[in-house]
């Protein structure tokens, strides 16, 4: 475990970066889709905010966990 720790850390940081990028891209696409096709812009706004809030909390938790390693 001790020998492979830097490699593991690097792998986790790379995984985290990919996950965060995907979450962001996914969120932007989702929001664009909702705003484009929804008849009610308030619903689109609330849904985007909700997605962003929960995704941010989870993403920050991931960052905290990787940092604590």
């Amino acid at each position, binding site marked *: 475990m001790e020998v492979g720790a830097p490699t593991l850390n690097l792998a986790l940081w790379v995984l985290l970066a990919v996950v965060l990028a995907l979450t962001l891209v996914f969120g932007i696409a989702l929001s664009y889709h909702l705003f*484009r096709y929804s008849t009610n812009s308030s619903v689109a706004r609330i849904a985007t905010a909700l997605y962003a809030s929960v995704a941010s909390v989870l993403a920050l938790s991931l960052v905290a966990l990787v940092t604590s390693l």
Partner: protein
Amino acid sequence: MKALELAAGEQILVQTRRHWLTFARDALGILAIGAGLFALLGLMNLPNFTASSDPRFITMLAFAEVLWLLILWCALSVVWVNYYLNTWIVTNRRIINVEQPRLFSRTVASWQLETVRDVRTEMRNPLQSLFNYGLVVFSSRGAASPVRMEGMPHADLVSNAILHQIEKYRTLEETAKKQEILLHTVSHEVKAHLTKNEAVLSLIASGDFGNVPEKVKTIATTALQDTRKGVDMVMGILSSSDFKTGTMKFTFAPFDIASALQDVVSELRSSAEQKGISITVGAESSSLLVNGDEEKVRSHVARNLIENAIHYTHRGSIGITLSRVENAVLLAISDTGVGISAEDMPKLFTEGGKGTNSRDINRSSTGYGLFIAKQVVEAHGGVIWAKSDGPGCGSTFYVCFPAATSSPLGTNTV
């Protein structure tokens, strides 16, 4: 829907998405998958296991769990967006389905109400009866299999709305058909009487009944002109009716449109000159072949457009050009007349559509001329359109026919 355009006069009667329970069912499926992982860890008796494990391992386990939650959250978001954007719309003309099978794929399908048959509803389980939602199924001409509207809230009301609208549509269609037949019959009768009157008045005016007093001759000439206008109007109504019922017959054969145009211009030149308007004709080639019904193109298109140009031009000139553009023949008739306002432009080629100017300038306008011209041009696979910079700026009418590829060989009646 922002991306959905309704036709003029189309009204939305019902707009609904699937029942919220169908979303709850899908969401529960995702939550069940999520819970599965945690249940697995519970089965592994993880608390005892982690108590004696490396803290780094526990952190990585927590990382995996949070990552799993993030994936579930994204999946749940997709399911909700798909649920929210999947919509069924029933308008007074059609049924529209906006389907969102996956997040970034979207299909919009519609079925015209006149093609919809056998509408029925199904409630398959107690949950659907309790929460009042179900399946609406209908068949449509042209659709290979019945169309299914899954998870419709108030399925019976949606089905009734569709059936009611179909019934209304059919009644209207039948009424319109009856009116069309009546109009056709009446027009025929009126035309027969007007034609007789026209013949008699023509004989009086031309002196075939011997010498008549000048006053009587003048009255007969005026009456003859009015009768001819009446005949023109009735003929317009009849032609329009024939187009709508699909009974208008065309005899297609290649003909020289340049020559046909010259003939029409020769016939109308005197009436233009009486108003002090000059007509110039410019043809790119002495012979331009078009495959079509020469008589109908002459009378309903060329004559109609040039007569209109004369009517609506008080001074100046009318320019007619005929040119070959790739595989088409383009006829352009421009005048220095009263022009067309932006609000009159959409009415131009509609049945009975009259512009603001036609009421003052061309009182004899039937409102059928350009409508029939458009039908004739379209029956030839052509296009007709108009351009004008506005009132007082003149106007140009364009007609584009597909050019005939060969010399006259035979005729084809449609």
